[in-house]
């Protein structure tokens, strides 16, 4: 399965909502064992929440190695490397450390309520 990210999201990959929209397009295929290619040609701007929603949640069910093996990033611009790596590392800790997850959830829910 190949997904041209620019056609779906545009050149600015910033928001959680856009990241979630991207994941909806491939989650079922990925969970079914398919290899998914995300083609980032023509995309330019990247912020962590986009990857927190599009890639991070995969770490709940799959190991980092498996995600790395079956989720391919084509034409990924240099600006995307750090936020993507950051999202994956944080998601790995979040799903593997229940104490950390619980504390972070409470704080961030508190932030969301107050915002």
């Amino acid at each position, binding site marked *: 399965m190949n997904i041209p990210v620019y056609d779906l999201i545009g050149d*600015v990959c*910033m*928001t*959680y909502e856009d*990241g979630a929209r991207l994941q909806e397009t491939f989650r079922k295929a990925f969970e079914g064992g398919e290899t998914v290619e995300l083609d980032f040609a023509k995309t*330019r*701007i*990247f*912020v*962590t*929440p986009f990857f*927190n*929603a599009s890639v*991070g*949640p995969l*770490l*709940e069910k799959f190991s*980092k190695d498996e995600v*790395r093996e079956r989720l391919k*990033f084509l034409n*990924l*611009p*240099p*600006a*995307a*490397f*750090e*936020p*993507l*790596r*950051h*999202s*994956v*590392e*944080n*998601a790995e*800790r*979040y*799903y593997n450390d229940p*104490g*950390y*997850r*619980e*504390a*972070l*959830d*409470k*704080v*961030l829910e*508190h*932030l*969301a309520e*107050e*915002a």
Partner: protein
Amino acid sequence: MPAKTIQIYRLDDSEPDFSRLFRLWRDYQEFEGELEFDFSLCPFLGQGAVAFLGGFARQLEARGCAVRFLVPTLRQPVRANLAQNGFLRSFGHAEQPWDGNSIPYRQDAEQDPRGFANYLEQMWLGKNWVRVSDALRNAIVSRLSEAYLNVFDHAKSGVGICSCGQHFPTKHELKLTLVDFGVGIPSNVRLFFLEQHGIAPETLPAAACMEWAFQKGSSTRPGGRGLGLDLLRSFVEVNDGQMEIFSHDGHAKVTKQGVEFRTLPVYFEGTLVNILLRCDETHYCLASEREHPF
């Protein structure tokens, strides 16, 4: 009741200058009535002071105070700067902004990451001040947008974020300041430690909270929001920039030598981020496309 007048002196973006602003806020944050800012003794107002005074005024206005910037007291260079960057127009004066070394004053009551990215691209980097490739331009906008979202996540101030920038052509530097008057980074970090480890908030100094927020892996969850600053820190460090963050009495300063954390004698309950970037690609280093991202 006559208006209270605050005299503003020279304010650049040094730590003592920010401390003076924080003390001013401490003294007037509960003020009720009419407040005026007199600039007759102010020969220079840096972008950090512009952003801070804008947020200061908006916070008081939100509580029903009348705040006035006394335009006739502005010396010509300061007046030109405040007119050029749109600050005066934002506070109801007729002067129209124009293109120059100033980068527009901006207020975001609501989170608008795309709008902020456009601001950075068009108003901050888009004037050919910075000799960088498209790839690096995109990386700079991406990392600074991360800072914007992070400040918003710590804000909860209602008034949102005020920002302002400045280009210094002889030093080849670009500066940007973001400020919010919300609950600050240490509040959120203390809540995290209370929840995770049962550590009493009063036992964690603000500088220690800032240090935690800068550590790798301290930050976001797959749900989108975050607490951390490590991504921005590494970008500034690697690329020979500078960044200072003030929140509560905590202070963090990032340079290419690393990060220093201190506890200051002055307290500001919100968050102020002051960033300096170099206008030359030779200072920058980007990830290689041959690497795997994780």
